[in-house]
């Protein structure tokens, strides 16, 4: 018998994140490196422990190796309890057959037995592709105060952007009377953050019903929530104030990293009371050599910098050789920027070597046709040859030969 947990969190981490291209070729989106030392999943996991949630199920499906290994026993997040902690839940074979997770709701449905053993009152559904710091216990407290069946976290977005989100239209008391999925003419600016609190008895019932419904896509947004609203369940919006960003695209991932460099952005990772935990590589401190120029940047231990780094985020063990220039870029662990290379507005994945005098990406002001401009992305474990040029917006998945000068 497992001791009762009042709250169980279920973290949806199975998404492929195809819009991140080469970055998610070999790993699931939640395992994508972020912010110089983290992976995206560190944010929801740390939020869980900081909110006092001790039981977290992580639902994985796509390319789980890196993610599973990273989560491991859950020890870095204090999620390695005797009878609780983090459990990686992948699709499995059952008596009646084997199935992949066919939708977000189906993924939870297939793991009802995991939730049941904790006999929780509430279940929090989270996704593994958002960067934010949030105290879920406040949201659960509001859920209780409203005597709600379901509470959906919403964030105020600019009206111009509202049509990209699921919009919750609410009554003055915060109860939801209507959902609009990506509306052309949004009635409000309350965008769903993809964070739900359910009273478990209700959720359980609806998951089982949904599973038996013909033609359902087994998705929270498309099936479960509309059905609950239709049935008149008590559904409330929870207003979240603070930094929140969906990092599902190259541009948003890049922007969110750059936000860490902006002192005016309310995402403070130095806050002792709400630490973001992660696995820490065993590396010596970073070394900034004579002649190096480093400004406006975030640099992790193990780096060795001899060139110039400005407005960039460098993960552990990155080498920037003398005369190399890194600007407005993200360089992931173990990559090397060789002498004289120039990397601008780019994301360079792990253990890649940018050869001497190679040029990766470009500043937007140097490009006439703005449609041709974008963040250049270089995959992991690649070699970009000497003097090679990688155009802005390029997505490089293979080695690039050097250019004779």
């Amino acid at each position, binding site marked *: 018998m497992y001791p009762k947990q009042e709250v169980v969190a279920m973290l949806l981490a199975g998404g492929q994140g195809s819009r991140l291209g080469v970055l998610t070729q070999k790993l699931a989106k939640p395992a994508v490196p972020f912010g110089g*030392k983290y992976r995206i999943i560190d944010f929801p996991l740390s939020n869980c422990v900081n909110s006092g949630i001790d039981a977290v199920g992580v639902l994985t499906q796509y390319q789980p190796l890196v993610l599973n290994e990273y989560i491991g026993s859950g020890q870095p997040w204090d999620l390695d309890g005797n009878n609780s902690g983090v459990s990686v839940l992948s699709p499995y074979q059952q008596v009646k057959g084997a199935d992949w997770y066919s939708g977000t709701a189906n993924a939870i449905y297939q793991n009802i037995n995991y939730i049941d053993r904790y006999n929780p009152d509430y279940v929090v559904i989270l996704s593994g592709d958002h960067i934010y710091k949030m105290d879920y216990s406040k949201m659960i407290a509001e859920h209780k105060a409203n005597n709600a069946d379901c509470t959906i976290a919403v964030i105020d977005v600019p009206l111009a952007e509202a049509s990209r989100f699921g919009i919750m239209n609410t009554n003055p008391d915060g109860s939801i009377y209507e959902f609009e999925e990506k509306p052309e003419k949004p009635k409000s600016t309350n965008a769903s953050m993809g964070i739900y609190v359910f009273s478990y008895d209700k959720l359980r019932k609806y998951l089982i019903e949904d599973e038996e419904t013909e033609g359902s896509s087994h998705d929270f947004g498309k099936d479960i929530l509309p059905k609950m609203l239709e049935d008149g369940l008590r559904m409330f919006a929870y207003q979240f104030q603070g930094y929140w960003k969906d990092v599902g695209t190259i541009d948003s991932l890049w922007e969110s990293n750059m936000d860490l460099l902006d002192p005016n952005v309310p995402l403070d990772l130095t806050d002792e009371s709400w630490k973001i*935990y992660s696995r820490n590589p065993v590396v*010596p401190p970073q070394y900034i050599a004579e002649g190096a120029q*480093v400004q406006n940047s*975030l*640099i992790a*231990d193990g780096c060795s910098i001899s060139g110039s*780094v400005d407005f960039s985020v460098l993960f552990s063990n990155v080498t920037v050789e003398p005369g190399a220039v890194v600007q407005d870029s993200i360089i992931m662990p173990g990559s090397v920027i060789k002498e004289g290379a120039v990397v601008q507005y780019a994301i360079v994945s792990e253990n890649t070597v940018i050869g001497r005098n190679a040029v990766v990406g470009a500043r937007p002001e140097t490009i006439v046709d703005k449609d041709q401009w974008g963040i250049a992305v270089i995959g992991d474990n690649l070699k970009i040859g000497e003097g090679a040029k990688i155009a802005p917006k390029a997505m490089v998945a293979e080695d690039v030969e050097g250019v004779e000068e």
Partner: protein
Amino acid sequence: MRGNNIMGIIFSNLHEDLISELTEVRIMGAVPFGGKYRMIDFPLSNMVNSGINKVAVLTKSNYQSIIDHLGSGKAWDLSKKRNGLFILPPFNNTSEYSNRMTTLNSILPFLENSTEEYVVITDCDTICNIDYQDVCRKHLENNADMTLVYKRAPLPEKLHDPAVLSFDSKGKVIDVLINSNVNGSCSYYMNMMFIKRELLIELVNKCISKNTLNFKRDIIQAEYKNLNVYGYEFKGFSPMITSMSEYFSANMALMDQEIRADLFTSDNPIYTKVRDDMPTKYGLGSKVTNSLIANGCTIEGEVENCILFKGVHIGKGTKVSNCVIMQDTKIGADGNLSYVIVDKDVTIKDERTLMGFLSYPVYISKGSVV
């Protein structure tokens, strides 16, 4: 390979008197070093990297900081069901731990209950990356009873009772001089020994029964003629911290790329307690050159030839050069520091100027406000 029939013993509190400023609030093993480490991280990581699965850390008093640092031993992969880390404070009174010999005597039951064939014994005052497997290999090749790790260099200043060794052509120890006057390079014992566990127990028992309690004199010097005692020369970077200026220059030596490559190898990394700091933030107008900096710092000023530990803040317009600044120290704006060793949690307010000198760095003690 883990679990190789060798166990480790680390003396975590010896030689504190040589760096009394740094050890006022901590023992030798807990002295911060190199931006993110404590002295004990080096012997501990060396043992783990050499496949040693069982390490006893002996500590006499003031052991709060070392226990806090070591925790369960998880960071060194020594949190194990089978063996792992053993922190052994004195059983009832600290006089039992008054020197190496009595300390070993008081842990005899632990030694007797162990099953490993060999023991590595080391102090915490030497920074190095040594492979004890290699020491073991040489020990077996020589069919030795005892192998002493030594370094060929001029004696470190102020080193307590240095033992200078002489060898025959095969590396067998043929003379041991303790506290002798030697000039120039010599082969001095690094306080690291490789020995059969049962022989160690036998020698300690013998010395205790005769009340001859000086480990170097009564075991090494007294026995080298009766036993097969060999030397093992360690040639890597290995400063001994025997004074504040040694401490300072050992830190500064890390600016040398070759020394860092020697000390921090990816195959034999140096482990330390994890703190979950974010990467270091370099602000607008920051200027950093030739410095070793740990995660969690915020740098808005100028930093030159410095070691910055985790969580250090350098304010706008401040210039720090040739300094060792320990964790979580905050330095305000428009200051100027040169040749200063600043301990943990110090607050240096705006517009402060502190100047030391290479041979005599100024020291600011833990938690002070300047």
